[in-house]
């Protein structure tokens, strides 16, 4: 059995803890080269999972008014406007030839603005990591690895301790309807019976739909199949083929993100084809599951505990006064 501390590409507790009931590991491949930024994924997700509408704030950040993943946004479409060519395309020979024929003298600058312009759109979602920090640190077992190899918060268990929130390298999880920052939270003791939901929410990869043999709502809605749902092994093969095609077509900056089982989280269950560095989309360039350091951290903690004991013991040398 693998422990989450060594990234090996196989999640802990799956499939072994499910025995017969284990299903093939499934996930998403989000191919941003065909994302039209329509946000159908965001809406389809909210409709199926009955997620509350969460505020109407115009950001001016291109067409993105969702801004980030959170308790009430389990899909988030990022919009990035760049002065870069979409493809490193070669000039079209005939055109120049014709240009001669039609006698076009003095070619003038294309546009006053920049000719090369691209508008990247990418639908972000929980990565359902092979080694998931949120899952590892959840003290209640509300977060668990399902029979499909996905990571799900159980709303009937979560007590809103919030430990998973800062532990996710991608900032996916968040607490619903609680003061966003400690600064504006009252130091009320105790806060029993508060009205807020108070639990942590994130993409479940439509766990209930999977159990019914249905594909997740976002993938089903996606008009261009930019969001593809399937068995993870199949998706990884498909992604490799896709990347190859885009390389041949000289797409600018095409790369896979999160398909590598050797990365810091043992590969994503929901991975991506991006057209630029991850941070451009608001994604970490080299995510590592915090618990990867836990064995060492535990040793440090034990030593520190011993140190504390020793230190205080030393204080007993030299009398009572």
């Amino acid at each position: 059995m693998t422990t989450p501390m060594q990234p090996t590409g196989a999640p802990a507790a799956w499939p072994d803890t499910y025995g017969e009931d284990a299903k093939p590991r499934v996930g998403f491949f989000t191919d941003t080269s065909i994302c039209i930024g329509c946000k159908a994924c965001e809406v389809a997700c909210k409709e199926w999972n009955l997620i509350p509408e969460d505020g109407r704030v115009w950001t001016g950040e291109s067409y993105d008014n969702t801004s980030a993943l959170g308790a009430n946004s389990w899909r988030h479409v990022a919009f990035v406007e760049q002065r870069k060519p979409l493809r490193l395309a070669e000039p079209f020979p005939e055109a120049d030839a014709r240009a001669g024929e039609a006698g076009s003298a003095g070619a003038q600058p294309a546009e006053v603005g920049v000719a090369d312009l691209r508008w990247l759109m990418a639908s972000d979602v929980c990565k359902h990591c092979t080694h998931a920090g949120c899952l590892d640190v959840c003290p209640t077992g509300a977060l668990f690895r399902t029979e499909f190899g996905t990571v799900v918060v159980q709303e009937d268990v979560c007590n809103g301790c919030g430990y998973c929130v800062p532990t996710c390298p991608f900032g996916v999880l968040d607490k619903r309807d609680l003061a966003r920052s400690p600064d504006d939270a009252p130091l009320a003791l105790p806060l029993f019976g508060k009205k807020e939901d108070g639990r942590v929410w994130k993409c479940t990869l439509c766990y209930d739909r999977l159990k019914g043999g249905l594909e997740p709502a976002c993938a089903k809605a996606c008009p261009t199949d930019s969001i593809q749902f399937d068995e993870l092994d199949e998706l990884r093969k498909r992604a490799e083929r896709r990347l190859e095609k885009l390389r041949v077509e000289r797409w600018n900056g095409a790369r896979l993100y999160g398909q590598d089982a050797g990365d810091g989280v043992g590969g994503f269950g929901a991975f991506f084809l991006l057209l630029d560095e991850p941070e451009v989309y608001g994604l970490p360039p080299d995510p590592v599951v915090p618990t990867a350091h836990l064995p060492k951290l535990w040793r440090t903690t034990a030593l520190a505990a011993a140190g504390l004991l020793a230190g205080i013991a030393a204080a007993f040398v030299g009398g009572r006064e």
Partner: protein
Amino acid sequence: MGFLELVRSWPVLKQLDGDPLGLGKAAQSERSRTLRPRVADADHVARSICPFCAVGCAQLVYVEDGQVTQVEGDPASPISRGRLCPKGAATKNMHAGPLREYKVKYRRPYGTEWEELPLEQAMDMIVDRILRTRDETWEDETPEGNPARRTMAIANLGGATLDNEENYLIKKLCTALGIVQVENQARI
């Protein structure tokens, strides 16, 4: 649940049974174990068409206890292949949105408030208005003496968001009434 079951259902003990880290099955709640998609409980599924743009995506409408519980794409459609855009995906939200109106509202001339009005009475009043205006403004002929058989004082607008059958009745009734100013979004 008896005490023993309660103890046995305690995940910490389940951990001892093959899930020492408590990351998998041991942590699964009973609710999660027996979870099913709500569409599985639908009384019936209506096959519909998206009401927004003219692409004509097919929709599956799941109904439970007379309420729409889910609207999603119909994979059988050769046009949409089960996919929907954000508007189509928000169909349920539009259909049952908090701002949806369910009651007739009436504003009398120079009135400052909406008033309530029974549907039947509203229909009666509308019939009155149509017939009165039609009688008052009927043109049997044009000033040049050409046949007209119309009223130019009543107009009807809208249709591109309606069904063919509805447009048919609109055109048929208005034409019979001599209302020629029948228009729709085709000009917009």
